[in-house]
Structures are given as structure tokens and as C-alpha cells.
């Protein structure tokens, strides 16, 4: 078995992995390996052919493949950054020994002084939401259909219903319409949409596709191929209301019902996980509970913008690079970030602040849509920062910067919460 050693090994060659590699290089690392299981770099961006990527990170509007190409160009022609495609990581040990396999090289044992986990996320499937009914062909996750339509050249069907109003579902509603399919409806169990407003406008309203909020599928019909679904209204507890059923004819059902960070390798390492983000608990440098193992991007928490994935991965890349060069300042104090009223998740969950302070950006999601609220950050009960939010939606992540100066004054507990009626 081939044995290899690198200063930094990055698992996953999507936007997070590529941005982490670039940042690690920019911060002085000179022995970097990216392992990617697909046949090329770029990750899921390669199938997201729509535009709207990169406005924050590259200050330019790009398509998914365009964004990927930018990231790939940033690491290209640098012999210090090695990439392996068609390579699957099977296991990582706490001693940072990686077992990987590829058809070309066979089994490999790769040791990293540091490891950055950037495996991204995957889609929830029919099994995860337990839709009752028959089990015919014609039911796909929206992302699988996206790959078929945009990269492989198959149309999954002609008459489409989409369950879930997440961004992938909305984007696919438009994509299928452009390919000449009829999108009958998008159904959303929540009383609000889970996608970006711009996607409701340009993917549904532009094509006159109805969005049925507080509705879900209560039966699937069809013996061999899907022939239709039964839809019901749901009450405030998301339970179907008897007597509200109606049928929609369709040959294809696309599921856009949420994403799950892909953490089999993290669980194998027994990293401390967060029950709501479904990702490893990290500090502001994106260090996990195991020293020398970093995590960034959708593997930590599902982002809505790839731009923020890149930003986060650059943090992980930077600190992994500083660690291998022995340049990391030790933390003086550990602050735990707690979520209060109205806030569902906040990343990072831990702040390890050195004596001179360290600038920190917190990424938060609210639990339900809110209007005119004040986001408050409290350190040991004292408000140290607040920000007025005209609108806050669960689908749109909120980013707040805390200056290095302010982090010096923090106690051992930080709370983020919403204050209403402002």
C-alpha cells in the first residue's frame, strides 16, 4: 500500500475544499493535498448551472461551473497543491491517518499533520420524510434530477411536482420549465417558503408555477410509474387536515426537503457534533473537538450561499496553515456561544480567544420568519453588540462580525438572541 504524507490533507474538492487549499497556500503552507471522489474538482457547483454565485466572494455574478472554475484556477499550477480525483476516503483515524482508495492507485495510507473536512452535504430522501403510498418510479431528489438534466442529458419526466420550497427545488422548477416540462406545483409544508425570495420571483412567479404553502403529500399513486399524488393542507403542527385532500396528476416528483451535512467520517472520528446543525462543533478557527482536525462549509452547517462557504473554508485553511508552521497563538480563554430567543443555530459554537483578541464572524439562523427585530449579542448578560434586522428568515443566514477588540472583553458565555417589538 502506497504511503504518503502531507502537512494539510483536505477531504473534498468542492468550493470549501478548494477555498481552504488556496487560503492555506496564501498563508504559507507548502504541502497540501485535496482528495475528491468525483472525476473532477468543483463539487456540486458543476451541476448548479444557474447564475447568482460569487457576488460576495468574487464581486461578480457567476454560474456554478463558473464559480468552480475560479476556485480551481486559484489552486492551479502550484506544485505544492496536489489533487487526487476519483479517490474516496474510507476512514480517518484520530492519529490523522487516512485510508483512501482510487481505481488508479488502489489503497493508499495518507498521513496529514492537519486535516480539513470539507465533505459538503447530501439531500434528504423520501425515506427521511416517510411519505405514504405506492413506491413507483419517478421520484427523485431535486439534486439527483439536477445532475441528470444538467450533466448527464436525461429528462426525469414531463409533468412535475416539487415537494419542498428549498432553493434547489425552486431552481429545478425553472430548469424543468426551460426544458419544456410542465411544473404543476411546488408544495411546502411550512407556512413560509424555505428558499431565497429572488428564487420565488425568478423561478416560480416568472413561470406562473403555484406555490402551495402549508401543504404536503399524503399519498403517492402509481404502480410502475408515478401517476399522481394526493395533497393535503396541514395545521399549525404540520399535521394533515382531514377533508382537505385533492389530487395532482404528475409523472415525476422531485424532493427538495432539506440537506444533511455528510459526516460519516466525522462520526468515525468521534468528533463532538451539534444536534441542530448536524455538523461538528467548531471554534472560530474551524477547529473541531480533535486538535489538528478542521471542518468548514456545508459539512459544518448547511449554507445558503457558496460565497459564505468559501469565506468559512478560508478561515480553516488559514489556521491549518498557521498550525503546521507553529504560528498559532494559544487561546487564553474559551467562550461558549449559546443560542437564545429566536435563534436556532449559531456557528462557531466555541470561541477560543488569545490574549490580543481575534476578530470573529458569527453565522446564525432564526427559527421562524421575523420582521423588525433586534439581534443582540450578550457577554455574561451584558449586551456587547446589536443589529437591527428589517427581515429575518430561516432560509437566510445572518452574519455578524465581532471585532478583535470586543472579543478581548468577552466572558465565558456569549448569548445570541432576538429582541422583538423594536
Amino acid at each position: 500500500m502506497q504511503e504518503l504524507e502531507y502537512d494539510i490533507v483536505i477531504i473534498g474538492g468542492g468550493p470549501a475544499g478548494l477555498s481552504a487549499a488556496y487560503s492555506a497556500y496564501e498563508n504559507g503552507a507548502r504541502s497540501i493535498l485535496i482528495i475528491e471522489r468525483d472525476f473532477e474538482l468543483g463539487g456540486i457547483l458543476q451541476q448548479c448551472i444557474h447564475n447568482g454565485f460569487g457576488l460576495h466572494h468574487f464581486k461578480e455574478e457567476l454560474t456554478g461551473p463558473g464559480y468552480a472554475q475560479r476556485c480551481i484556477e486559484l489552486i492551479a499550477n502550484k506544485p505544492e497543491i496536489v489533487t487526487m480525483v476519483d479517490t474516496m476516503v474510507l476512514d480517518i483515524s484520530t492519529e490523522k491517518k487516512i485510508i483512501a482508495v482510487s481505481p488508479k492507485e488502489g489503497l493508499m495510507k495518507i498521513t496529514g499533520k492537519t486535516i480539513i473536512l470539507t465533505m459538503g452535504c447530501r439531500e434528504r430522501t423520501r425515506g427521511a420524510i416517510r411519505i405514504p403510498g405506492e413506491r413507483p418510479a419517478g421520484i427523485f431528489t431535486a439534486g439527483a434530477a439536477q445532475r441528470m438534466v444538467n450533466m448527464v442529458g436525461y429528462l426525469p419526466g414531463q409533468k412535475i411536482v416539487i415537494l419542498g420550497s428549498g432553493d434547489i427545488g425552486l431552481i429545478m422548477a425553472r430548469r424543468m420549465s426551460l426544458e419544456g416540462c410542465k411544473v404543476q406545483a411546488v408544495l411546502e409544508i411550512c407556512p413560509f417558503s424555505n428558499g431565497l425570495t429572488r428564487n420565488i420571483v425568478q423561478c416560480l412567479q416568472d413561470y406562473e408555477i403555484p406555490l402551495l404553502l402549508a401543504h404536503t403529500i399524503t399519498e403517492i399513486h402509481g404502480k410502475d410509474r408515478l401517476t399522481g399524488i394526493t395533497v393535503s393542507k396541514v395545521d399549525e403542527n404540520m399535521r394533515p387536515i382531514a377533508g382537505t385532500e385533492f389530487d395532482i396528476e404528475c409523472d415525476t416528483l422531485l424532493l427538495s426537503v432539506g440537506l444533511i451535512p455528510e459526516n460519516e467520517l466525522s462520526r468515525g472520528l468521534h468528533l463532538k457534533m451539534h444536534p441542530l446543525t448536524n455538523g461538528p462543533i467548531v471554534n472560530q478557527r474551524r477547529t473541531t473537538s480533535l486538535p489538528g482536525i478542521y471542518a468548514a462549509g456545508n459539512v459544518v452547517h448547511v449554507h445558503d450561499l457558496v460565497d459564505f462557504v468559501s469565506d468559512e473554508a478560508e478561515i480553516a485553511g488559514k489556521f491549518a496553515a498557521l498550525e503546521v508552521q507553529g504560528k498559532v497563538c494559544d487561546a487564553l480563554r474559551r467562550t461558549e456561544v449559546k443560542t437564545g430567543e429566536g435563534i436556532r443555530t449559531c456557528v462557531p459554537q466555541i470561541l477560543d480567544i488569545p490574549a490580543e483578541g481575534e476578530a470573529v464572524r458569527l453565522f446564525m439562523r432564526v427559527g421562524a420568519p421575523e420582521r423588525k427585530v433586534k439581534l443582540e449579542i450578550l457577554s455574561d448578560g451584558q449586551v456587547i453588540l446589536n443589529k437591527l434586522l428589517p427581515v429575518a428568515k430561516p432560509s437566510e443566514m445572518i452574519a455578524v462580525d465581532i471585532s478583535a477588540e470586543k472579543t478581548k472583553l468577552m466572558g465565558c458565555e456569549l448569548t445570541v438572541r432576538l429582541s422583538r417589538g423594536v
Partner: protein
Amino acid sequence: MTMEKLTMNCITCPVGCEMTVTVEDGVVINVEGNSCPRGKKYAEVEVVAPKRMLTSTVAITGGLLPLLPVVSQEPLPKNKILACAQELRKVSVEAPIAAGQVICGNILGLGVNIIAARAIDKE
């Protein structure tokens, strides 16, 4: 003289500002709620002649993949988007293709080029 107030969301970037747009005789005279100048620009175009970017795929032979993603170099009239997408279904190119290469020049005579969104090498 007719004056009306419209509520619309800017779709230029993911922030999606909710704007109140005052229109007088078909012309935007005031925009509120936008957090950057792009919102005003969007509202002005959206009220008069809405435009959208188009992204789709065309067939490619001899490449690592059977499809090449393409994008309009500039926004196209919204009511021509479906016709342009239909037109692109007839297009086939041969690998290699460089990112940014013109795949369909001046589509449907609208003065906008459709370009490759990525490079695709020969198989």
C-alpha cells in the same frame, strides 16, 4: 396621470430587498427599501421591460461530458427566455470548448451572445 405603488423584491442578489416602487405613467419615480443602487436599477427595468439572465445547456460531442452549461452574456427580455431556451436545444458543439467561448452569437437576433459557462476538454 396615473400613479401607483408596487411592492417587489429585488432579485439582483440573494439579499432580495423588499422595495416599494412608485410608478407614474409607466415610469419609476421613486424606490424605497433597496439597500444598494442596484435595487433602483432593477425596479426601473422591471417595471418597463423585465429582463432575466438565461442559463441552460447545449449538447457537446467528444468531450468528458455530454452537456455544456451555457449562460447569456447579458440579461434577455423576460418574454423571450423560453424561446431562447428552445433555440439552444437545437445547438450542438464539439469539444474542446473554453470557458467564455461564444456558443450561439446574437441569439434570435436579440443582440446577446450565449457563452460557455465552463471549459470542457476532449475525452
